[in-house]
């Protein structure tokens, strides 16, 4: 008898958890959800860009090595790509969030291009030139964070 | 000072005369003396004895895995109590562990895995 009662209890809990999880997964995105996703993506992008900028500048001063810079830039690229993917996976539920998407989406594209430039820079002159767009992209995303976080 | 079977013996480490681990006291074998009182006959060690103490599904599983390696069906390893020289923070034996039966798992691993890797016998 005890065992049966236990089994029933466990089954009910499992059903509730399952149902709750199902609801959370399928319920429509709200303004709040979208804002959280967007701010998270922007923060990841900012971290990646700012780190790349510090490391790139340090490379110009010969404070870090080439393999080190490559590794850090690879990390930054991965973080940025992950953020962009999460952001693109959520669709805006209303006009306010649509505006948010139109603001941040292009920023992430520019950020990606700026990191590309840094990764492809062959010499110091190119590196110095590539740092400009990275700094701009970082400031731009920072501005987005100021406005929405 | 009296000896407590569960506290002083069970789950205590058995070491040989050189201080090298031989096994845990996984159970204690008792024999009834002339006056009808049980006395400590031997220490049982190894996963067969441990599994039997656990009981339940887990215990049966531990025992059956251990028994599969025990191809001669000798049962748990048995260390006669007369080999014990002292019981303190460990149960100390008078003899070196080479004089006791080799644990089946150790023997199997030495034959099939560890003993085959170069350097296994080096200091």
């Amino acid at each position, binding site marked *: 008898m005890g065992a049966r009662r236990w089994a029933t209890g466990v089954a009910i809990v499992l059903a509730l958890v399952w149902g709750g999880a199902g609801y959370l997964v399928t319920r429509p995105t709200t303004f709040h959800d979208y804002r959280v996703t967007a701010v998270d993506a922007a923060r990841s992008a900012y971290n990646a860009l700012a780190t790349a900028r510090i490391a790139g500048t340090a490379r110009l001063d010969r404070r870090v090595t080439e393999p080190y810079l490559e590794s850090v830039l690879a990390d930054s690229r991965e973080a940025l790509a992950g953020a962009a993917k999460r952001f693109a996976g959520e669709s805006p539920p209303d006009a306010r969030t649509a505006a948010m998407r139109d603001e941040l989406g292009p920023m992430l594209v520019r950020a990606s291009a700026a990191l590309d430039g840094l990764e492809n820079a062959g010499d110091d002159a190119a590196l110095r030139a590539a740092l400009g767009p990275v700094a701009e992209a970082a400031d731009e995303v920072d501005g987005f964070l100021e406005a929405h976080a | 000072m009296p000896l407590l079977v569960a506290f002083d013996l069970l789950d205590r480490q058995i070491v040989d005369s050189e201080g090298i*681990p031989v096994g845990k006291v996984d159970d204690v074998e008792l024999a009834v003396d002339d006056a009808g009182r049980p006395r400590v006959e031997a220490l049982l060690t190894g996963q067969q004895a441990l599994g039997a103490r656990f009981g339940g599904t887990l215990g049966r599983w531990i025992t059956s895995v251990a028994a599969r390696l025990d191809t001669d069906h000798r049962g748990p390893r048995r260390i006669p109590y007369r080999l014990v020289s002292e019981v303190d923070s460990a149960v100390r034996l008078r003899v070196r562990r080479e004089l006791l039966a080799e644990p089946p798992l150790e023997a199997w691993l030495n034959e099939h895995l560890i003993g085959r890797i170069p350097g296994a016998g080096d200091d």
Partner: protein
Amino acid sequence: MNPKRLLAVTLGILTAIGGFVDIGDIVATSESGARFGLAHTWVLLVGVVGICVYAEMAGRVAAVSTRPVFDLVRERLGPRVALVNLAGSYLITLATLAAEIGGVALALQLLSGTHYLLWMPAVAFTLWLALWRVRFETLERVFGLGGLTLVVLVVGVFWLSPDMPALREQALTFAPPAGENWPTYSFMAIALFASAVTPYEVFFFSSGGVEERWTRKDLLVARVNVFVGFPLGGLLAFGFMATSAIVFHPVDVEVDTLGQAVLPAGLAFGQVGLGLAILGVFAATFGAAMETGLSAGYTVAQYFGWSWGKYLRPRRAARFHTVVLVSILLAVAALLTTIDPVQLTEYMLVFSAVVLPLTYVPILIVANDRGYLGDKVNGRLANTLGVIYLVVVVAAAVAALPLIVMTGMGG
């Protein structure tokens, strides 16, 4: 003490490295510095004192009675409860081992530019070979002392010309800075504390004492190991926290990679400093990998009473060496799923809730048992601190669970 005795403190240093500057801690402490400035400094201090209290007891028991910690766990708690502890400790240790193998490979990637997954098989094999062939004292000295090069980050604090009054103020703050929330601050505090007092440290330290054949005469050596090793470990961790607080906190950049964590060394001392820091990370993570790999073997062997230890030929401790080998293989298998190993160690916090009390209670009880320690039982100070930390550990462990849910692992 003669020079040989001086080298004998490397066991304490190596043990402390596994608790304070293993790969998970390097990233977590740097992240804390970047997000909260020096506002978690007190956690490091509380952690250092806590692990000192219990490692001292474990070392004393090991020296006087030659019984390592997991031996006592089974003896005092019985086979069933000890098995729960064994399962939890093994999972924590294995996850950390996987993370460390990944961490060594990451350090090699920073040095060479070759992707870390390519380094991993070589790292795992070298680790196994070291644990199979090399003498315990040699391993301990090479990697314990090698890890000390991380001191470059501590020195770097002064080279980065920081705003000292601001740092001092942060260090004396016991709250999250503006813009951060309490749950995340508390979660990270608990994570840092739990990893400072992580159970494999006492398993490794006490077993290491037995490996080194400590006797009653070595009580002083055991104590010096504890009181030099763990504060040094805490200091190295502080180096990561402080340099990240100086470099990343002012510009609001979060730290979540090893590359970021060592960047301040480059900014302070250039390529040489960066190289030293990466070398230190390499030695520390490799040392922590040895610590966790051996601990996995120690705990399982001591639970079952098997012969164990590097002082025996592998043939005479075949079961112990098999557990070490299998653990390394399991760790590599876990890494090959491309799971984030550092993230994995954070999830292990859940198991600490069970494992920490089940490890520290038996140590505390046996340290009061004259049957084991004779006149070397705990004094009033060790007992008072021991009980206080037991309460802290349990409280932290209980608080960890809701915080994990609230913050999504410190997010």
